[in-house]
């Protein structure tokens, strides 16, 4: 029963040609109004309203404007963008083209992570086909609006999923995030107005211009509209990509994926939060537990300290090193985890680590550092007893 509900349920029913012609029949203002009415929020995880973003970029003045698709899907436990790009790339390209028309951009760029290089050739083929069909090029569908898309590859840096780091990388720099403001909608790629949206967000745009904003807004909750793709992995019977309406509870999701006996679930990847079994009634939505789609299930036997350690090793490796709270803080937290592992961390020092985590949340420059302590903080909050007073077998 569950098996046939897996996959791209909504997206596979959307005709990208219908989406594009539907959008092109509208004025720029009408496109943005429709998008705003859908109350679509960014599917990468941050949840910024897409209509607002596009409206700001449309109003901004610039010599050129850009549409960037963030396909640097690096959040641990996330793989739904890979599936979208492999199965329904036309939806993403149609969504980007609608974005180009809406904000007045002639150029779109897909920033594809280096780890997904094997997807590139197929995507180039789809782009070539769209050019031949007149869906990209000097005249999109015979209208006086030029738009074309190119693919640029990432080179193995998680931080480039942060939109300003991504732009730095496209400009040929180290992927170090910029201060915001100014935001990319007025000072983006090459200093020009730019929208950066997630792969799934663009696919949602195509769905909205096929089925209508009111259809989209009728799914999910008041503040979190539409269907959402979830990448489910870890200790469950049926891992994979699932589509659920926003607002589903953790318990409902676990039933679908065969992970009812879970001890905890990490929602939102390494930068997300650990939800313990006692809180499985919480809903996955922007207003409760927010996620870009990553759901990692931890079974009854899992050691939560090992989980926290894996996440902290990830952040120590992936911090760009630009700002002190993130560069140094992650190292100190990992050190603390090693002390816990060896059973030589005092309760007072653990509290100091929690304070350090809060400092990192407040003082880091970008989302990476601001969210990197989340997993550790939430694991300590819920599993303090499990972490402390360990008896360590010291190597002789």
């Amino acid at each position, binding site marked *: 029963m569950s098996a046939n509900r897996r996959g791209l349920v909504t997206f596979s029913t959307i005709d990208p040609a219908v989406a594009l012609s539907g959008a092109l029949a509208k004025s720029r203002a009408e496109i943005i109004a429709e998008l705003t009415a859908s109350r679509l929020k960014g599917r990468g995880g941050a949840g910024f309203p897409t209509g607002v973003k596009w409206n700001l970029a449309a109003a901004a003045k610039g010599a050129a404007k850009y549409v960037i698709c963030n396909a640097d*899907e*690096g*959040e*641990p*436990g*996330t*793989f739904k*963008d*890979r599936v979208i790009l492999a199965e329904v790339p036309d939806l993403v390209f149609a969504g980007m083209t609608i974005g180009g028309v809406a904000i007045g951009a002639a150029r779109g760029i897909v920033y594809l*992570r*280096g*780890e*997904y*290089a*094997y997807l*590139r*050739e197929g995507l*180039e*083929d789809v*782009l*070539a086909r769209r050019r031949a069909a007149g869906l990209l090029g000097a005249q999109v569908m015979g209208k006086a609006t030029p738009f*074309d898309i*190119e693919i*640029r*590859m*990432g*080179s*193995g*840096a*998680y931080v480039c999923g942060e939109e300003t780091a991504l732009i730095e*990388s*496209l*400009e*040929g*720099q*180290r*992927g170090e995030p910029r201060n915001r403001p100014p935001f990319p909608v007025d000072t983006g790629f*090459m200093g020009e107005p730019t929208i950066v949206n997630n792969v799934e967000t663009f696919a949602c745009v195509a769905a909205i211009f096929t089925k209508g904003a009111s259809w989209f807004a009728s799914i999910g909750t008041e503040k979190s509209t539409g269907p959402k793709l979830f*990448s*489910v*992995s*870890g*200790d469950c019977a049926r*891992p*994979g*990509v699932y589509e659920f309406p926003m607002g589903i509870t953790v318990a409902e999701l676990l039933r679908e994926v065969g992970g009812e006996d879970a001890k905890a679930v*990490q929602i939102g990847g*390494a930068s997300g939060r650990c939800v313990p079994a006692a809180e499985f009634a919480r809903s996955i939505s922007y207003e409760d537990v927010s996620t870009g789609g990553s759901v*990692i299930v*931890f079974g009854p036997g*899992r050691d939560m300290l090992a*989980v926290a350690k*894996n*996440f902290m*090793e*990830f952040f120590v*490796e*992936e911090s*760009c090193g630009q700002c002190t709270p993130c560069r140094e803080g992650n190292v100190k937290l990992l050190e603390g985890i090693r002390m816990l592992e060896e059973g030589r961390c005092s309760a007072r020092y653990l509290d100091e680590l929690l304070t350090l985590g809060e400092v990192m949340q407040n003082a880091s420059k970008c989302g990476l550092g601001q969210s990197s302590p989340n997993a550790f903080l939430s694991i300590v909050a819920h599993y303090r007893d499990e972490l402390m007073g360990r008896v360590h077998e010291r190597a002789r």
Partner: protein
Amino acid sequence: MLQTEQQRLKEDIGRWVERYGARRSSLIPVLQEVQAKYTQISEYAMQEVADHLEIHPVEVYSVVTFYSFLAEAQQGKFVIRLCRTISCDMAGKERVARQLENDLGIRFGETTKDGKFTLAWANCIGMCDQGPALLVNDHVFTGVTSEKVHDILQLCQKSFGPLAVHANRDHEGVRR
């Protein structure tokens, strides 16, 4: 480096700069081409790219050292990147790692003496539901067990075909 090899690198860089355009935003695509064809970005290559883009070679160096897929040191013909992030970790990546080290006779971060294999860790490669997963150059292998390690290495040893080729190769045909 032999004179002829250096000449070839110089010509390649000139060609790639021409294709992507002599601007700073072309830096990473050009470096990716160098990496794919020469399995490293040597000091000579950095200087050459810097000259073409009219930037200081230190700028190129700072970019090369930032990205984990760009390398100063010579990499093997086959770069094996085993995912070490949580889902692959829980699925048993550690045993796969041990077997890779045993079969290749090197540790992670090293390259075999014959220059064929480099063993590296990767952070989440987006195959979390099918772990343990690894990349061999641009090709992905999922559900890897310690037993399958041997088969994968054998495939590389015999391969002068698709596995040896980077997907990031010349896109002359499809690029506008």
